[in-house]
């Protein structure tokens, strides 16, 4: 990842011919402006507004009533909110490491100059750009309790058919499996880029020193891939906490039960189904704080394990 390497590059940023650093910075700001203005108006504004809304009782249709921190106090005692928190936590703890490990394995396998690599990469990236709706529909058939592909597969191994998304025990794992499959492409592409940026000389030198395949992986590949791991980790963590579409399309029967309700679904449900926009806003601030704190801890940890070349 160029961004990280650039930041760690030794020495001052090389000057452009004919212009002082200040001029370059001005251009940088100019190019960043569309995004920054967009973020400020379309993201920062609404985020701040959400905080205001979270202090009110508001059904969207009538003027809001000020209730202070009442919504937050109610959240702590709301069983469905706590269940949503637990489910989201479970989803994150399982899907993030699992997704990264699988993506890393795939990237390593694909990094050996196989013919048609471009096609294979495209194939892995396709689910990423496919709408969650279409993906959900296909997976619903894979998971169908009667005649679904998955039950036929495990039937070949002599295992009894499962109800998958209709079974509280299997529902979340089933959703995780689909999401991991769907999100794999992004991480694979990033890992592949990271792997290809590792200079061949390091491997050569390691080989000369008598390092075997595992030792080369442990001591060359893994450390030099940590920036990529760090980057995909943060993306995966944030998106895991925002899990919504997969639950929306796959949860059975009809809508998420205790086994599958997640934080963002809870927010959607309260804001748009239960006429509780203030309550939903409070829940989204809790989500925001959780993600912010975890991201902060994660960033702090990078000193310990991320190695920039």
């Amino acid at each position: 990842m160029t961004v990280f390497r650039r930041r760690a590059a030794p020495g001052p940023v090389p000057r452009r011919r004919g212009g002082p650093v200040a001029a370059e910075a001005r251009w940088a700001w100019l190019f960043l402006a569309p995004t920054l203005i967009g973020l400020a108006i379309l993201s920062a504004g609404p985020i701040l507004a959400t905080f205001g809304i979270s202090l009110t009782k508001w059904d969207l249709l009538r003027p809001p009533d000020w209730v202070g921190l009442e919504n937050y106090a109610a959240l702590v005692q709301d069983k469905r909110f706590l269940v949503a928190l637990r489910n989201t936590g479970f989803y994150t703890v399982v899907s993030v490491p699992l997704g990264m490990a699988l993506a890393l394995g795939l990237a390593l396998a694909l990094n050996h100059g196989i013919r048609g690599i471009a096609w294979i990469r495209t194939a892995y990236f396709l689910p990423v750009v496919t709408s969650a709706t279409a993906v959900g529909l296909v997976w619903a058939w894979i998971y169908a309790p009667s005649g679904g592909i998955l039950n036929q597969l495990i039937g070949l191994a002599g295992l009894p058919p499962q109800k998958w998304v209709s079974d509280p025990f299997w529902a979340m794992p089933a959703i995780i499996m689909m999401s991991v499959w769907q999100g794999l492409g992004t991480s694979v592409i990033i890992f592949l880029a990271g792997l290809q940026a590792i200079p061949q000389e390091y491997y050569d030198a390691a080989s000369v020193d008598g390092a075997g395949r595992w030792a080369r992986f442990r001591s060359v590949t893994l450390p030099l891939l940590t920036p990529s791991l760090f980057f995909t980790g943060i993306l995966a963590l944030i998106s895991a906490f925002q899990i919504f579409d997969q639950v929306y399309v796959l949860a059975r029967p009809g809508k998420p039960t205790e086994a599958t309700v997640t934080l963002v679904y809870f927010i959607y449900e309260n804001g748009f189904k239960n006429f509780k926009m203030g309550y939903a806003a409070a829940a989204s601030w809790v989500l925001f704080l959780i993600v912010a704190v975890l991201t902060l801890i994660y960033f702090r940890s990078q000193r310990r394990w991320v190695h920039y070349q």
Partner: protein
Amino acid sequence: MRTFRSSRGPRLLAAAAVASLLVAACGGGASPAPTTPISPTSGPTTALPSGEPSASPAGGYSGPEAKISYAIWGDPAELKSQQAIVDAFKAANPKIDVDVTVSDWDAYWDKLQTGLAGGAAPDVFAMDGPLFPDYQSRDVLLDLEPMIDRDGYDLGQLADQGVADFTAADGGQYALPRDLNTVVLYYNKTMFDAAGLPYPDETWDWAKLVEVGKKLTKDVDGDGTVDQWGFYTETTDMENYWSSLVWQNGGDIVSADRTKTLLGTPEAAGGIQFLQDLIWKEKIMADPALFVETGDAFEQGKAAMESNGSWLVPTHTAAAGDLGFEFGIAPLPKGPAGRFTSVNPTGAVVYKGTKSPDAAWEFVKYLASPAAQEQLMKLKASLPVSKEVLAGPYATSFEGARVLADSLAYAKLKPSFAGYNEFTTILQGELDANVFLDPKKTAAQALADVVPQLDAILAGQ
């Protein structure tokens, strides 16, 4: 509700709509501006000269030219049907232009709420009976009572339940019903004939359903597992069967004043217990999970009987044609406390902020008129609300239509109260997980566990 439950495809598309509506929510004011200057001149607009209650083909509207928007949920066939009604209306009322928009069930309500919040809601929109109190109590609907009085409009020409469902606690009338749906027992004649059994009729009770259901539950292909069930219904909403069972057992869902749930009673539990028993004790119905992805078992020719809504007539007819079976329609079997079924009207309501209330009212009246109702009836996806059409053309329009029309005599309104969505999410979550999909609890145990939460939701409205 039919889009919501009968087909999964359109519902899934709603995910995409969620994103777009969030954007729309910020956008706000881009409403289709009416071409005419802001209309409602003070004082009464020309009253209908006639004693003729419904909109006459000549048109009773003599206000300024108006353009109104009309939003509905539904599938392409329903849009086509509603568009035909709108075209006929426009031909009769050249001064009023009507623009119809259709969405699938989930997206419809999301859009409606953001539209209402942004002051850009459709002038006339479809309203589901159970959700009506949530909107009416938030003061976004126009009370039609003054216009009903002004025009001398006779509400008695419309199905009583349809009118009653949209009469608010304050006595106002906030919608005219547009169509109705009731719940009946569908049966596969071909399967009954093959088993040499007489068809279900009005003498049937719970015991008879179980007795015949057992005879029709079998392993047809002989591989050791049951592949034909005597009975099928959807368990994920009270309307498809279980609310009727509660009533048939002498119970009810909420109190008359809508302040507390009556599901904690033994009568209510007994009704729901009967459905659990059909699945897990009598085993005449498959585990609901088996058909959750593939849809209606009756339409796949895998169930001999089904309790479900009148909205399924078109798809049942198509499925029967494809698979080569014939089906009939009978009343739901009687329970210990008698015969009951569920009726749920869809109403046409007017947005309180509309710029053309008179044009909107003219259109709402037309939707309930015999002419529009006869057009709607052709879809067979719901019952007409016009008594004249119900008793006349509709009852003879297809085999079984009379059973549907007659069911109104013993039908109770689908429960309708503020907080309906939140209430049913908690209630169905418990019933689906612990009673129907997996008999971890008896109905009484499960209900005892959720009743305090349900009461708290009702108290919080």
